[in-house]
């Protein structure tokens, strides 16, 4: 290749480089707006009065006193229903989190580092169920719970939420890739019982995976809508996600028939939306790396 054609080519590729960069810049700018505007708007909306929300610039900042008014209206709704719903969410997601960890960490460990009959079966079952969206089993689980008379009981959501095959899979991948079997064998030769091997050697090394499984389990369960919606018919048992439906029904802007003394204004509904995701939002702020590590664990090997 002669020198001139090389130069020509370089100039050409510089040119495509420039235009590509411009297109890339424009595309990212559009999507930054698309993803960010709703979030920014939502946070700002909580600080405005209903009038200001519809009249003023959507991105103006409201006042502290309007925020307090919205806050009070939200927590006075149906004499404190919102606090009950948030507490219910915490109970369901928290209870399921504890049970998930108790069940899946030892299971993932045993699948990775011990031998037993049906190990292969349990592994395949875990993988298949893991990829099924959790809504697919909601109605069948409802029919089952109905048959044993647990409908309306907190256990009817906590127990199904505790079955978390993805957590077992993550633990399995972690233990099989990062802990050598020889380490455990050495402990066994020294006379440690199987339980001691797990609790004294494997578990202390597993802190990152416990946090990872806990994160995914909590986020999935806090945001779960379909399961509690079906299992818990009484308003006093709702988690906040289902409670949002009630708030929506009491908002005259969406439901004109609800105008009255208990009605909810739009900024209050916006505040409810923020509160309904606050714990998850806080976890998300610190968890981007978690997500990548979890979803790419083991799966990327070609």
């Amino acid at each position, binding site marked *: 290749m002669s020198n001139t054609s090389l130069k020509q080519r370089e100039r050409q590729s510089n040119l495509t480089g420039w235009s590509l960069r411009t297109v890339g810049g424009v595309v990212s700018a559009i999507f930054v707006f698309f993803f960010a505007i709703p979030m920014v708007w939502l946070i700002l909306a909580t600080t405005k009065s209903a009038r200001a929300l519809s009249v003023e610039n959507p991105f103006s900042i409201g006042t502290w006193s309007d925020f307090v008014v919205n806050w009070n209206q939200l927590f006075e709704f149906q004499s404190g229903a919102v606090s009950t719903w948030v507490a219910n969410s915490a109970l369901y997601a928290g209870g399921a989190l504890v049970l998930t960890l108790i069940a899946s960490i030892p299971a993932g460990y045993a699948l990775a580092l011990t031998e037993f009959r049906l190990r292969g079966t349990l592994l395949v079952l875990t993988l298949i169920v893991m990829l*099924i969206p959790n809504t697919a*089993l909601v109605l069948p689980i409802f029919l089952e719970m109905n048959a044993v008379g647990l409908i309306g009981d907190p256990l009817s959501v906590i127990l199904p939420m505790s079955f978390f095959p993805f957590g077992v899979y993550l633990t399995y991948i972690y233990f099989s890739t990062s802990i050598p079997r020889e380490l455990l064998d050495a402990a066994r030769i020294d006379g440690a019982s199987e339980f001691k091997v797990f609790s004294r050697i494997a578990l202390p090394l597993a802190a990152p995976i416990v946090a990872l499984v806990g994160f995914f389990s909590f986020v999935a369960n806090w945001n779960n809508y379909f399961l509690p919606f079906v299992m818990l018919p009484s308003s006093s048992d709702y988690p906040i996600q289902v409670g949002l439906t009630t708030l929506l029904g009491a908002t005259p802007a969406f439901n004109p028939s609800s105008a009255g003394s208990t009605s909810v204004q739009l900024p209050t509904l916006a505040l409810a939306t923020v509160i309904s995701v606050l714990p998850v939002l806080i976890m998300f702020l610190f968890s981007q790396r978690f997500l990548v590590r979890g979803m790419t664990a083991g799966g990327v090997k070609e």
Partner: protein
Amino acid sequence: MAYAFVTPYTLLALAFGIVPAFYAVYLAFTTREGGFAGLTNFSQVLGDFRFWPAAQHVALYVIIWLFALVILVTLLALIVHNIAIRWASTSLRFIFYIPGALAGASSVLLWLFMLNPSASPFSGLLHAMGFESFVEVIAPNNLPLVFAIIAFWAGAGGWIVIMYGALNNISQEVIEAARIDGAGPFQIARRIQIPMMRKWISYMGIISLAAGVQLFVEPQFLSQASQAVVPNDYSLNQLAYQYAFRQNDFNGAAAISLLLLLVALALSAVFVLRGGLFDKE
């Protein structure tokens, strides 16, 4: 001793994985009185005048959503990966990712605001497109697109972050070699990066397809917010819900659930058997 470690998990798997699935099979093939029903429950739901419209709604939504997801996620991941300035790339990923915190009901509620021309920050855009009221925005023909936008807004960021991670795993030497051979960013993307991401793209596609078929929260919420302009049997899962709770027909509900479950099972089985999720190394 290994059994003690797996017992709690196995019990949960039996109680909330295997048993409900088989119970649904049992209900789907029996009558209300418990006698064998053959395929009558299935022919009843498939013959229901609401079934095929619901299936069509879901199919249209899933097609739009998957199309947007595969193309835009790949594109945005490539763009973000090509940005050399570190803080810019990090903050872009963060902005794309953070809406994921609002999964489910919260994201739908937020988008009710966005789609309401009287409150929305996008009201200029909505007016420019000829929409004057909330009810016009959620006209039946727009719904698959509306649901796809909501799902994309909440879900795309997580996948962009994952694809970005996959792009980082491609060795720099391969890319460098291609560049020396005269490949531009376009060709590098087409010949090297996209083929290397293929496994992740198909993983995303299968998970999203399986989840999309289950559409429930979005139409359920819109139905409530719109005074039933959006019907409460818009999607298949809603129809199954109607069967169970309005008509007290658990056998019909089980039949629909089973059909949906089969779709999800088939997709996941294909991926497990062909995708190599099993491999430790």
